[in-house]
């Protein structure tokens, strides 16, 4: 595929980077990224990945745009209230970059459909708001050997980590074992979240996808990056190696079928 003059201009600030170049931009244009959740984290990630020219972007979310979303979910506008989030997201992405093919999945991601959803994508971003979904994405990606980036945000804090199907890298379940009981851990709805935190962490997820696709730099594997905005503190926690006793990626996994945990954290509407 040769770039058109318009594409050369559109992506000129990428192409000039020695770490990207025309070769890296071509990889981006041929890449397929799936974003699960078109909310706080998914919004900035989708905007930047569309702007970057990622060839195919899948976006999955069952919700419609609600007024309480707009404080942080910057891919949606006031005029989009009531519209499926995936539709609103697709329109904004294509407004920015009509070259991007956006696949929308207006559905909850479950143990029934996740394997099918992720199978055609190169990299998965977890932009979900609840632990059952986060564990489901982890387990499905581990089982399918699919690279993915986890993230979470609350109040003025956020975190993310990337997993690749390589020996000895810990997965999300190695660190967190199983979802906490319902209401045991405060949610964004209960505790609040500063809108720009979703922007910071969602953009860091987009950067993980870009680095993975282009094949440059170091990915955030074997580590959890945390950000505390109140204290201006980025802290990279080096994680232990893969837990040999991990229920999904360990040597004798007890989880061989995907699990739909009870909806335990943020409630489904907000």
């Amino acid at each position: 595929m040769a770039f058109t003059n318009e594409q050369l201009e559109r992506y000129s600030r990428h192409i000039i980077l020695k770490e990207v170049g025309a070769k890296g931009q071509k990889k981006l244009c041929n890449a397929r990224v799936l974003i699960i959740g078109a909310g706080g984290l998914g919004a900035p990630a989708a905007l930047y990945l569309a702007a970057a020219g990622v060839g195919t972007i899948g976006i999955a979310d069952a919700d419609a745009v609600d007024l309480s979303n707009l404080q942080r979910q910057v891919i949606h506008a006031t005029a989009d209230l009531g519209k499926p989030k995936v539709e609103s997201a697709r329109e904004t992405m294509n407004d920015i970059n009509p070259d991007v093919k956006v696949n929308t999945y207006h559905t909850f991601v479950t143990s029934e459909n996740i394997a099918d959803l992720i199978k055609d994508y190169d990299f998965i971003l977890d932009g979900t708001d609840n632990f059952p979904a986060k564990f489901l994405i982890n387990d499905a990606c581990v089982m399918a050997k699919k690279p993915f980036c986890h993230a979470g945000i609350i109040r003025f804090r956020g975190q993310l980590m990337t997993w690749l199907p390589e020996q000895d890298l810990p997965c999300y379940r190695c660190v967190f074992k199983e979802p906490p009981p319902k209401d045991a851990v405060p949610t964004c709805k209960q505790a609040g979240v500063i809108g720009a935190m979703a922007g910071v962490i969602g953009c860091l997820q987009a950067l993980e996808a870009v680095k993975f696709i282009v094949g440059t730099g170091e990915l955030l594997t074997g580590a959890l990056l945390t950000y505390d905005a109140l204290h201006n503190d980025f802290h990279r926690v080096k994680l232990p190696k893969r837990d040999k006793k991990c229920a999904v990626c360990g040597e004798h996994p007890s989880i061989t079928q995907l699990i739909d945990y009870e909806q335990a954290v943020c409630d489904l509407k907000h």
Partner: protein
Amino acid sequence: MKITVAGETKEVRDGITIAELIEAEKVETPEYVTVSVNEEFADREAFGSQQLSDGDTVEFLYFMGGGRA
């Protein structure tokens, strides 16, 4: 003795256990925090008995949801 907690060096009493450190650090939702000591996951059952040593590096890892919705 001195240990490093979440990247910061702290003076703590000799032989402090993980459970005592969790309390001293006022860890939120302590029942659900993951703890690593010198890049090894600590066993939750042993938080009350596992003593820390001078120079140890301790990290607390928290559940964070958020994002969509």
